[in-house]
């Protein structure tokens, strides 16, 4: 299955949370204040290989 790399719509309304994405990044399978919480939701949603990321408080511009 092709991997979704356009995360704009999926993530735009989520602020300052840990997010578990499905293995193809097409769906959100968990949202929580911690990776542990997001992974527990992913497990409950029967996602065997979630990908974690964190959403920032504001989607600004990053210059690291």
């Amino acid at each position, binding site marked *: 299955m092709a991997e979704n790399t356009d995360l704009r719509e999926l993530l735009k309304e989520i602020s300052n949370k840990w997010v578990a994405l499905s293995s193809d990044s097409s769906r959100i399978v968990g949202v929580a204040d911690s990776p542990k919480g997001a992974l527990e939701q992913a497990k409950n949603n029967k996602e065997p290989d979630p990908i974690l990321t964190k959403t920032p408080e504001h989607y600004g511009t990053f210059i*690291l």
Partner: protein
Amino acid sequence: MSPTLKFDYRKFPAEPSEAFPRRFSANRPVIPVTLINDGKRIKYLCLIDSGADLCIFHAEIGEQIGVEVEKGKLLDFSGISASNMKAYFHDIRIDVGGCEFDCYAGFSRDLDRLPYGVLGQQGFFDLFILMFDYSKERVELKPKNNVHAD
């Protein structure tokens, strides 16, 4: 011969600003990587960052794979907009697209403003030949000899 790994840039939301009023999207070389410690694995998005000296990940991610963060070797580090940050370094393994390698990586509680882990020069760029193509929105990684490819 090691395969070349190809990853499309990921598109993230962006907020318009006075300087960039039509910027609603940001394309970044962010790829999924699996961090491995004591047989525990976690997959998470990381930014390939040529400006970073080292690889640094969120402390909470390390804790999920059993890393006792503050028992690692301490490094004080700075970014372009913040200083006095602390990371604790541990030996872990990393899997990128089926290529697995050792990495002496930092875990930090000071990455809260960052949505991704950071793959930097030592521990990542030294293990791959990288080619970034912004117009094609693609990054290619060719593993060097010390990277084990499945």
